[in-house]
């Protein structure tokens, strides 16, 4: 949109190439994939969250050895790792949209989105490795 257009004569400017229009692509980059990944991860998090609340209530007040024994069950290990990976993917996708909405300076926006991606990836890795260590070594 041309913000400087006079009100009496709206100026229409399209930020898509003809090829992009034919292919149904957006202005740039990967909006559709982002939107779809956010939905897919949210659907996966519905059962995973319910399972985790159940597990957290079950483990509440138990000593560490009992938690390690619980995490050592392969089904719990797998669900725990899936929960961490999908939670951090979902929050990275969601917070990226928040940053894109509110950070107006393009350089700072790009830097913060990349920083978010790095931080989310690193925290997910820490969570997964801690879960695996807990599961395998007790």
């Amino acid at each position, binding site marked *: 949109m041309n913000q400087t257009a006079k009100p009496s004569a709206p100026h229409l400017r399209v930020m898509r190439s003809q090829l992009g229009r034919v292919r149904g692509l957006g202005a740039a980059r990967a909006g559709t994939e982002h939107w779809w990944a956010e939905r897919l991860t949210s659907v996966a998090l519905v059962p995973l969250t319910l399972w985790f609340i159940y597990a957290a209530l079950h483990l509440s007040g138990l*000593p560490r050895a009992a938690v390690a024994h619980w995490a050592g069950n392969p089904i719990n290990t797998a669900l725990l790792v899936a929960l961490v990976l999908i939670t951090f993917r979902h929050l990275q996708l969601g917070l990226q949209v928040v940053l894109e909405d509110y950070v107006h300076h393009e350089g700072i926006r790009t830097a913060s989105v990349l920083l978010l991606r790095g931080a989310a990836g690193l925290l997910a890795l820490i969570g997964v490795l801690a879960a695996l260590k807990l599961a395998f070594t007790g």
Partner: protein
Amino acid sequence: MSDGRDAMMVGRSTDGRLVQRPLSPHLQIYKPQISSALSIFHRITGIALSAGALLLVCWLVAAAGGDAAYDGFSGFLRSWFGVLLLFGWTVALWYHFCAGLRHLAWDAGYGFDLPTMHRSGIAVLVGTALLTVLTWIIAIIVW
């Protein structure tokens, strides 16, 4: 060159002039309604839950770190501040959970008419309250 989306942005003012519609509602003239309030709560709880995900990682790291680390972290969660964090976390979680299901229904094309939208919005609030209370009743019983 123009396309459908750009054409939709053109409207007429009351005196008949062609104008470009604004891109988004101006908050200072926008009447607060359940739709806009629940929408921003979804975003706020999403941000809060991102901080809550740090608690999950801390819990796993403490559990992998040994008995002393785990007892220390459990003790923190049982302090008044830890319980406050956990309570806020459950409220945000159940809100984001219920409102997220509502969003998924919209994505599938259901529930867009205003009466349904208002009813589902109230259902989200009631569901959040019930699930939070239920979670804490169970938590207190098993504590």
